């Protein structure tokens, strides 16, 4: 799954640790999502969307 997390985080000038803290996950998880090596659960995707005041579809999209 593709995502715009890194771009959105950069726009807010947050570090991976900052974002991890706000989502209550580890920094490694943020890194794995940004590198598209891990697809977050639906509940984490909702948290991300809520944090960036956006929709899940605007942040995450399928590979194809």
């Amino acid at each position, binding site marked *: 799954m593709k995502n715009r997390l890194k771009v959105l985080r950069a726009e807010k000038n947050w570090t991976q640790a900052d974002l991890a803290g706000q989502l209550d*996950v580890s920094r490694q998880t943020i890194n794995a999502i940004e590198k598209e090596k*891990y697809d977050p659960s639906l509940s984490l995707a909702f948290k991300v969307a809520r944090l960036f005041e956006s929709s899940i579809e605007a942040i995450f999209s399928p590979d194809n």
Partner: protein
Amino acid sequence: MSDFLSNKYDTTNVKNSVSVLLWSVAWAGSMLLAIVGFKFFWSESKWLIGLSIGLHLVFALFALRAHFVWLENIDELMRGIQLKSAAFTLGIVWMVVIVMLLLNSIGWLPVHDGHLVLLTLIMAIVMPLSTFFGMRKVA
């Protein structure tokens, strides 16, 4: 503010990890106490033998509970890695146990107490290795 928030997960994780470590040490220590106590101090006292084994079981339950609390509070990616590692470790141990029993039944390898230590050693090696490779896969 972000520092506080970013530390919340880590703080909980560290606290739970320390709890796991302490209860595991207490668990291992109580096993040692039960064995050493029986061999050198209270081999004649059934009451003390029962008490030391009971203490060991209580510590085992608390260690198990600490592991559950730790597992429930790590994030979804880490939990996935840990559960896969645990499943892989369990699978390896089962494989070794069954091969050992097979070798024992055909008389090629008489199984004795020392082999139980070998199983613990295998778990102690496979679990962290599996976790390491799981972490590396997503790094």
